[in-house]
């Protein structure tokens, strides 16, 4: 037993003790840091397993450090840790203890750091850091942001370099725009919708992120000298290939994944059966009438879990989730799962819908039970229906949240796609198969976190910069 462990056992600080015990098991293999978006953004300052090391060595110092504040809870590391350490949860708990012990000092430092790296840091913080989980209300948040000392500095860099077009103004597009602008490029962002912000604007529930904050942050980005053209759809208002004719030297595709996958079963067109994005947009824009009594979500991803919790907030009496594989295969992050279960959402595993029942109004869903066969290419076991295990569950409203695909009809054939409909890229430079065209965010993954989108955008900016430097030389 180390000194640290002993000390805390005696003090009866059970939670910290438990965290230190977890930290003891870390093998320092580095699987958490590789691919971590926050390590990518702050390579000199942050390394998750080194924080654990510090926790073992000197817990007080670890609690008083700013390193425990970096993790953006994307849960990319969690499934990989050979010791099964749930890092985001460890950090969350450490933060709670640190807030009690040391106040908000280090959190302010983090906000400053974020501000220096991401102009729309408020959005980033609100979405990725779950302030409600560390009990920060509106008042605390406002004071936190007000006192932010640093600023996103451009140091009067003139936009003298090449013109670059960015398609999409979600997290990836916005971050790429800022980074490119900082390197002196002339950046134009094209947004097909009325308002910029992409997923920030459309799908993150109002209770987690108010529209006005999104608008404020977009204005901030604009004030850096970045042009955002809304209501311009590439492929309709401007053809993709004409971008080059218009003088853009390079293009970054960050148009997200907005085409929801369908089950293709009977009754899916009933008005009470919505796709994930339809539901999220409707709830965001306030056109969603009260959610019905019995609400069913189909799918096992983070989006499905988010919809389940939102439905409760919007007045559903009973919410359940249908997922066709077992708990071992569910793609939703463990924290999201835990959260919905805490809220009383019932998850039915190994169940697949066969048809939606109802003439004009949804009345129920006929389902079938599934068993798990051999693993498929994704390594997860393939669900197979169990004969004659059909049953019906009641439902007044259902949302199909089984994944989203990018809508890429506007791209020329030179930009090759993967089998699953995402854009095929060089993972180092993020360049597509078409010279000078790069991509990042949900268009390459289907669905990922904001932090990951930002990392992809950052890589793409380096790739584009490199590409244009070479081009200049030629």
């Amino acid at each position, binding site marked *: 037993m180390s000194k640290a462990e002993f000390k805390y056992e005696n003090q009866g600080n059970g939670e910290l003790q438990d965290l230190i015990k977890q930290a003891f098991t870390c*093998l*320092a*293999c*580095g*699987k*958490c*840091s*590789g*691919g*971590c978006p926050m*390590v*990518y953004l702050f*390579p000199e300052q942050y*390394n998750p*397993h*080194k924080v654990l090391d510090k926790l073992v060595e000197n817990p007080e110092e670890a609690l008083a450090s700013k390193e425990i504040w970096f993790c953006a809870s994307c849960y990319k*590391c969690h*499934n*990989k*840790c*050979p*010791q*099964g350490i749930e890092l985001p949860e460890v950090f969350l708990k450490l933060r709670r203890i640190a807030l009690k012990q040391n106040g908000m000092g280090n959190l302010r430092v983090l906000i400053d750091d974020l501000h220096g790296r991401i102009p729309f840091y408020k959005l980033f913080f609100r979405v990725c850091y779950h302030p409600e989980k560390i009990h920060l209300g509106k008042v605390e948040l406002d004071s936190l942001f007000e006192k932010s000392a640093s600023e996103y500095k451009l140091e009067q860099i003139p936009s003298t370099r090449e013109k670059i077009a960015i398609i999409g103004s979600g997290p990836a597009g916005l971050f790429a725009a800022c980074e490119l602008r900082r390197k002196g490029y002339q950046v134009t962002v094209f947004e097909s919708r009325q308002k910029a912000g992409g997923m920030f604007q459309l799908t993150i529930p109002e209770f987690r992120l108010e529209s006005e904050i999104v608008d404020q942050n977009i204005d901030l980005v604009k004030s850096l000298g970045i042009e955002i053209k809304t209501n311009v759809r590439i492929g309709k208002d401007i053809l993709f290939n004409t971008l080059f004719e218009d003088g853009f030297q390079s293009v970054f595709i960050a148009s997200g994944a907005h085409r929801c996958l369908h089950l293709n079963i009977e009754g899916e067109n009933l008005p009470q059966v919505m796709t994930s994005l339809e539901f999220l947009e409707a709830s965001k824009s306030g056109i969603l009438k009260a959610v019905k009594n019995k609400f069913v979500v189909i799918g096992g991803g983070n989006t499905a879990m988010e919809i389940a919790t939102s439905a409760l907030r919007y007045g559903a009496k009973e919410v359940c989730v249908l997922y066709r594989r077992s708990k071992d295969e569910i793609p939703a992050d463990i924290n999201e799962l835990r959260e919905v279960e805490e809220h009383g959402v019932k998850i039915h595993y190994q169940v697949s819908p066969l048809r939606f029942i109802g003439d004009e109004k949804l009345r129920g869903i006929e389902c079938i039970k599934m068993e798990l066969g051999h*693993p498929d*290419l*994704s*390594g997860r076991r393939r669900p197979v229906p169990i004969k004659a295990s059909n049953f019906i569950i009641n439902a007044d409203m259902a949302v199909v949240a089984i994944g989203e695909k990018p809508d890429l009809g506007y791209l020329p054939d030179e930009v*090759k796609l*993967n089998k699953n409909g995402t854009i*095929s*890229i*060089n*993972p*180092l430079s993020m360049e597509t*198969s078409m010279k000078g065209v790069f991509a990042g965010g949900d268009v390459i993954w289907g669905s990922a976190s904001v932090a990951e989108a930002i990392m992809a955008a950052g890589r793409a900016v380096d790739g584009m910069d490199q590409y244009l430097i070479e081009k200049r030389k030629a």
Partner: protein
Amino acid sequence: METNQKEELRIGVYVCHCGLNIAGSVDCVAVAEYANTLQDVVVSVDNKYTCSDPGQEQIKQDIKEHKLNRIVVASCTPRLHEPTFRNTCAEAGLNPYLFEMANIRDHCSWVHLHDKKNATEKAKDLVKMAVARARLLQPQIEAEVPVTKRALIIGGGVAGIQSALDLADQNYQVYLVEKEPSIGGKMAQIDKTFPTMDCSICILAPKMSEAGRHPNITILTNSLVQDVTGYVGNFNVKVLKKARYVNEKECTACGDCTEVCPVVRPNEFDVGLAIRKAIYTPFAQAVPSAYIINMDDCLGDVPIACNKCVEKCEKQAINFDMQDEILELEVGTIIVATGIDVYDPTEYTEYGYRRFENVITSLEFERLINAGGPSGGHLIRPSDKEIPKKVAFVQCVGSRCTTRGNPYCSNVCCMNTIKDSLLIKEHWPNTDIEIFYLDIRAYGKGFEDLYQRSRDEGVKYFRGLPAEIIENPMNNNLVVVAENTNTGEIMEHEFDLVVLSVGIQPTKDSDVIQRLLTLSRTKDGFFMESHPKLKPVDAPTQGVFFAGCAEGPKDIKDSVTQASAAASRAGILMNAGKIRVEAITSKIDPDLCNSCGRCAKVCPYHAIQVDVKNKVPAETIEAACAGCGTCGAECPKGAITMQHFTDEQIYAQIDALTQENAHEKIVAFCCNWCSYAGADFAGVSRIQYPPNVRIIRTMCSGRVSEDFVLRAFKRGVAAVLVAGCHLNDCHYIDANYQTKKRVERLWKKLDKIGINKERLQLAWVSAAEGEKFAETIRKMKGIIDKVTQAEIEKTVEVLER
């Protein structure tokens, strides 16, 4: 029984310090002093090491000097030193069955390290129980049984082959059973061996053919062990020899049949990287050197359907009418050499195995670099058949991981990768090789040298496991993202080929062998040895031995060493030609027996004859009885005596432990093979649990009769635990199903008479489940804390009525 004994009882008690192992947390002097106060104890001393020569000498001397006629040693587990002290007694002229042991180390000092007061009290209780039982012990004569001088070896890898050769050379008949069409195992698939870089098949093939030629070895390939009955020296084994459809003796392995066969399938031996036909031989050096038809693939023998091979075979060796055979073998010893499977890394989704063509496993690498492999020894990457210029190795895939694969270190992967890196450098010196590792474990003779050589050749070693591998779809190259944990820098390196150094795990069907031979497995899934240090190749089941990776991951050298050791252990048994069996069988008193037949019904060995109709009393066939005691527990008339585990002896133990503070105590009846051993394992692992429990050993949980449990409650204990082997793992075939039935019956009974049935617990604890045993006791501590004095008094009252 006791009453017939006119002789005066003179008991000697020896309390062992075991250095500080016991004395560290038990006051041994106080225990010895306490023992002196017990009835009939004449001598009571404590000594540093009772098992040492001076310790044993003292016992012998005291037996003579003080005319001792019962000996109690309070030290470690009887599973370790009971044979030692029984010998000591025998040497001093005392019948060895007049010896009793109190386990105050594994069950006491080691599991209550920080509670000297309670540990000492518990040790006193354990000694008191042992003395109480010793007073009732009777001399026994052990029967001798012959040992069949034939051995069965399960698994024809290098370990099985080595054991077979060693035994055959000592002139024993050996059956070598292998489930694949050829012997050779995993070693046949590997290209070179570390640390010497010998060609694997070149050194294995001569052994394989020697085994094939040896007059004392019968090789049964394509065969499975289906059933094992009997006991040490006298096992009856059923082997299913699946039809080969090619006569092994006639086939010359000319290969004409394969040429005409139209069916193409992936070749299992080349891990799917090459093809084979429906009629095939797995590899050139296969033994037996005969082809085989896989009937699932074959189009059939109807001339219209196919029949091409039959027409082509000049020797007419192909016979579609061949049937599966069941062979019945009688053997004296069995060696388990079932080996390993290779871990399938598909679930490591971040590494993209099966999604990315150029991510391969280390076994696939072996086949690719092997001259006899699908690419003729050219290391080519699967996507474009080009020779890779940059190769990465990823270590610990499926090893040392608590969430996926296996938590243990697979022992061989580090050295295998080091060897592989040198193989590449040997053929293509300009290849860039990077190895991503967590720790390099180069612990054996010559290993560090090889590691150094690899570094000298310019192979780069980075400490850090890749977080992800991403394919570049344009050229199928792979980007490995990993932190160099020595510098903290995140590396993103591009490679042509990535080799996942996958771990090894027990064979898929080792659970079948486990059940057939009533073995235990550790939580890693490998077979558990009788003693990890002193009997590393003996199974807990007498007459069964381990060779190779069946017992734990090891390299070729260690497998061969262990195989020879197992052969030697088996040879010792067979050389003696006979073996004594413990005198623990059942005896039935014909005067008390009312011929109800219940005993015969529950006997797992059909070792009891009774004629219920004609009221002929039951009788035990001693040679067939294994001594589980299930009959004794079922007999409603008390007509059955289990020798050396009599009802009176067990009652005496219960009565002794309940003399004081019974209300704080848990009585645990533990079966010798699993639960008692599991409690020992908790001790060896120093897993701490509450000191309230007192363990009474029976050979099988089936021995625990209703009356034992009720007696304990009547004497005022807080709770009773009945613990046995997991169902289907019983060392007496299925006797523990009777335990289950009986405990369920008891629960109903307790319920009916108003006793909280939670106070009787049933647990299945294997010899490897020390933690489970400890957890069971912790849980029961929670239960007894809630049992009030009034509740206990009421129980006593109800039961006395």
